[in-house]
C-alpha cells in the first residue's frame, strides 16, 4: 500500500523553509545574492506576502516529492538521498548550466541558487525518506 505521510510533508516544508531563509540571509549567503541578483528583494527582508508565497511553493515541492517517493517505493533515507541527488542533477543543475551558457547568469548566482535547491531537495528527501507513512495516511494512485 502506497501512502503519503502529510506530517512528514509539513515537517519537510518547515525545516526546508527555515534553512533556505537562513541560507539567503546575511548569516548565510545573503551578500552573494545581493551582489549578483537582479531582483529587488535580494539581501533585504522580504514582505510577509512574499514569505507566505515562498512557503506555499516549498509546501508544494515537498508534497510533489512525497508523491514521487511513495510511487517509487523509497526504502529509506539512503535511497531517498540518492533519488534527491538524481532529481537535483536533472532538474536544477541542468537549468543553471543552461542559464550560464545562454543568458550569462553570473556563476556565483547560479551556484547560489543551485546550492539552495541541492540543500532543499536533500533535506526534504532525508525527512520524507526517513519518516514514512503509517497505514491510515493518504493513499497515492497512479498518474
Amino acid at each position: 500500500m502506497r501512502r503519503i505521510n502529510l506530517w512528514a510533508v509539513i515537517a519537510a516544508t518547515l525545516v526546508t523553509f527555515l534553512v533556505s531563509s537562513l541560507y539567503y540571509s546575511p548569516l548565510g549567503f545573503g551578500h552573494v545574492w545581493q551582489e549578483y541578483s537582479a531582483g529587488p528583494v535580494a539581501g533585504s527582508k522580504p514582505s510577509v506576502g512574499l514569505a507566505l508565497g515562498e512557503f506555499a511553493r516549498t509546501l508544494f515541492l515537498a508534497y510533489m516529492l512525497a508523491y514521487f517517493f511513495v510511487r517509487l517505493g523509497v526504502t529509506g533515507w539512503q535511497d531517498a538521498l540518492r533519488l534527491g541527488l538524481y532529481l537535483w542533477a536533472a532538474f536544477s543543475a541542468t537549468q543553471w548550466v543552461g542559464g550560464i551558457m545562454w543568458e550569462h547568469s553570473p556563476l556565483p548566482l547560479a551556484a547560489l541558487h543551485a546550492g539552495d535547491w541541492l540543500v532543499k531537495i536533500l533535506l526534504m528527501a532525508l525527512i520524507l525518506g526517513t519518516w514514512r507513512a503509517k497505514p491510515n495516511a493518504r493513499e497515492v494512485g497512479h498518474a
Partner: protein
Amino acid sequence: MPEINYLAVLVAAAAAFVASAVWYIALGKELAKVTAAFAEAQQQRQPWKLLVVLAEHLVIAAVLAYLIGRMGPVGLPGAAAIGALLWLGLAATQWVGAMVWEKTPWQLAAIHAGDWLVKLILIAAIVGAWR
C-alpha cells in the same frame, strides 16, 4: 536498480534535443526581445554549447528512465503524465521562483518552462513506452 533501456535513453535525449531546438528557433525572436544575452548567443556559432545541451538532455533522459523504470509498467499515457507531474513539481516551481525572486520576465520564464514541459513529456513518453 531497474533495468534501463539505454537505446531508449539515447533516442529520447536526441528527440528532446531536436524538439528543444525547434522550440527555441520558433520562439527565438520573442526570447531575444527579453534577454539581450540570448540575442547575443544567437549570433555566435558555438558548437560546444550544443554538445553541453545534448549532455543535459542525456542526464534528464537517464534520470527519467530510472524513475519510470522503478515505477513498473505505466504505459504511454501514464509515462506522459509522470513527465507532466515532474514538470509541475520540479521545473515550473523553479521558474515561479525566478519570476518572484530574480525579476525574470514572465515571457522568458514561460518560454523556458514551455520547453521543459515539452521535453519532459516527450522523454517520459519514449522511455516509458520503450522499455
